[in-house]
């Protein structure tokens, strides 16, 4: 009823292949973007930026990256933390070595460097599959983090093994460091993430995306109909790592400002991003956002609700929060194993039929 497609005719393939072929979707997205770009910046403060919006957006970017690899190409990776570290350390080395370099270029270059590292660690995927591959990618995770932690060069010989983001401007506006205005950081990340999401969407609906999905769904058949597994898997690793690397770059450069390899890019990070895409929906860009929102916001909301709202002791609240997070994950998996994105889709289908059940 509300969500009616009837009457929306498409008279050429181009419009059928548009990003949001249905008008309601288009409107919805435009409204969301409008709010995000125009309204939010006026209201956002330090807390909302640093505790909520930046982590959400940056994790969403990482989740898109991992989703390209895992959700679209079917290669489960637990090396996300390590690849984010590559992005972060590239950013650190690049900005300190070339202070004049535009930060946008720094982020892109960090992505590119991560992509090349990703390709190297993607090579085993040609032979190793499924959970074997997942566990094997932990080799990348542990090795990369160890390497950054170990060799002074990566840390500019800082004796304590921490890296710091020096303050940088783009077009005369301070963008990194503690003095950068929250709305500036937010908008910068928002623009970046939106463009990346759009590019990701474009990739997955084109030839490359289809060959990834083919590999995911049945790699042998894909090979037999002429998709080169080598090419498909390695591009997936490259593109995915590119995204994850950029996320790592923003994560360090804009959000945290300082990072220690083992703590900031540990294996928890890898798992966190993996949760996001599974809960959000494998093989869905929208799902990456929903998953990131759930995993980053849910604990905070629960905590604030329990501590500020119910007045529970902090520690009790934390224990309940952990338990509840687990329960919610299980609950949503049982309700819809294919994540929020699928839930959203079902909701749309129901809306389309409403008020009839079928």
């Amino acid at each position, binding site marked *: 009823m509300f969500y009616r497609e009837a009457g929306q005719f498409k008279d050429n393939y181009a419009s059928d292949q548009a990003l949001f072929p249905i008008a309601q979707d288009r409107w919805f997205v435009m409204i969301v973007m409008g709010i995000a770009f125009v309204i939010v910046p006026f209201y956002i403060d330090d807390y909302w930026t640093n505790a909520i919006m930046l982590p959400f957006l940056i994790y969403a970017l990482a989740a898109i990256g991992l989703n390209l690899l895992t959700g679209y190409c079917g290669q489960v990776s637990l090396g996300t933390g390590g690849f984010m570290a590559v992005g972060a350390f590239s950013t650190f080395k690049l900005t300190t070595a070339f202070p004049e370099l535009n930060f946008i270029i720094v982020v892109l270059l960090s992505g590119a460097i991560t992509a090349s590292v990703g390709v190297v660690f993607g090579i085993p995927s040609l032979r190793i599959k499924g959970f*074997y591959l997942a*566990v094997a990618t932990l080799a990348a995770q542990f090795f990369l983090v160890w390497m950054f932690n170990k060799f002074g060069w990566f840390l500019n010989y800082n004796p304590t093994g921490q890296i710091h983001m020096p303050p940088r401007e783009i077009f005369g506006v301070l963008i990194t460091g503690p003095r950068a205005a929250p709305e500036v950081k937010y908008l910068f990340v928002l623009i970046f993430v939106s463009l990346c999401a759009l590019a990701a969407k474009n990739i997955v609906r084109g030839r490359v995306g289809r060959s990834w999905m083919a590999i995911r769904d049945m790699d042998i058949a894909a090979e037999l109909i002429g998709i080169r597994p080598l090419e498909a898997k390695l591009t997936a690793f490259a593109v995915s790592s590119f995204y994850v690397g950029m996320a790592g770059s923003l994560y360090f450069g804009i959000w945290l400002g300082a990072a220690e390899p083992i703590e900031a890019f540990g294996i928890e990070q890898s798992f966190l991003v993996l949760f996001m895409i599974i809960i959000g929906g494998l093989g869905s860009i929208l799902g990456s956002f929903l998953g990131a929102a759930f995993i980053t916001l849910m604990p905070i909301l629960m905590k604030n609700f329990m501590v500020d709202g119910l007045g529970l002791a902090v520690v009790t609240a934390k224990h309940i*929060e952990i338990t509840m997070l687990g329960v919610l*994950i299980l609950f949503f998996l049982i309700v819809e194993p294919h994540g929020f994105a699928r839930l959203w889709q079902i909701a749309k289908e129901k809306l389309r039929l409403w008020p009839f059940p079928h």
Partner: protein
Amino acid sequence: MNPELLFFFETVIGGLMAGVMYSLVALGFVLIFKASGIFNFAQGVMCLFAALALYDFMAPGGWVDRWFGFTFPVWAAIALTIVVMIILAWLIERFVLQYLVKQEPIILFMATIGLAYVLEGIGDILFGSDVKPLDVGIPQGASDWLWDNFNLYIEKLEIFAAATAAVLVTVLAIFFQRTRIGRALRAVADDHQAALSVGISLRTIWVIVWSVSGIVALVAGIMWGSKSGVQFSLSLIALKALPVLILGGFTSVPGAIVGGLIIGVGEKLAEVYFGPYVGGAIENWFAYMLALVFLLFRPQGLFGERIIERV
């Protein structure tokens, strides 16, 4: 003995022993994977949970003590913990697995992560997060006999763990390969729906394997708990078991042991002989790299079932 050679031996034996300790954890993974195709991420937390429960039954100040004013002797506490693990398995089946029949492996994997959170939270709420020194009477410290006679340093606890692991593996391997239930377990791992269609009750099977792996988790929890006290970090040993798991093969009980031995020896030798040149602390990634190298030659692990590729 030549001190260099002695050191080499010690490292190798130390590695073997450490490997056995990893194997104990890996074994729990293998059981569940083999029997249901689920990569049970909660295994580490299950070890912790079992050890916490065990401690609570035995130690002064626990729930039992507070409510009833007495504590159980070790054997009774172990028996009771086994009962707890079986109940836990039942609950897991009842509230989670039942609804996830025929889902993709990664979804099931995610579910076990959710489970890990729940267990962690509940464990914290129930038992608190202090370090709890666990003593079930397993001998501790270096073996004096070996020390005095051969100048060899081997932990008694680890010798004990190795013996336990050997027994466990033998029993489990026979169980899987030879019994009717064992066959059914493997069938379930292959195809949930087809298993249902021949009358295998997934629910019973799942309760059985999760119970068994709960018991294995208890064994691992006892060993690791005796070694480093019962505390949250215990759940992180799962990460040490993963390379063992892929090297041995997800589906092989003996693989868990052999994998453990190889990883244990490999990482210790690397750390001791190669580590100093690159700054040390290479054990962790080295274990994974080692497993990775083996996998490149055998993508299903040393003893894993061949991955069937057909059209």
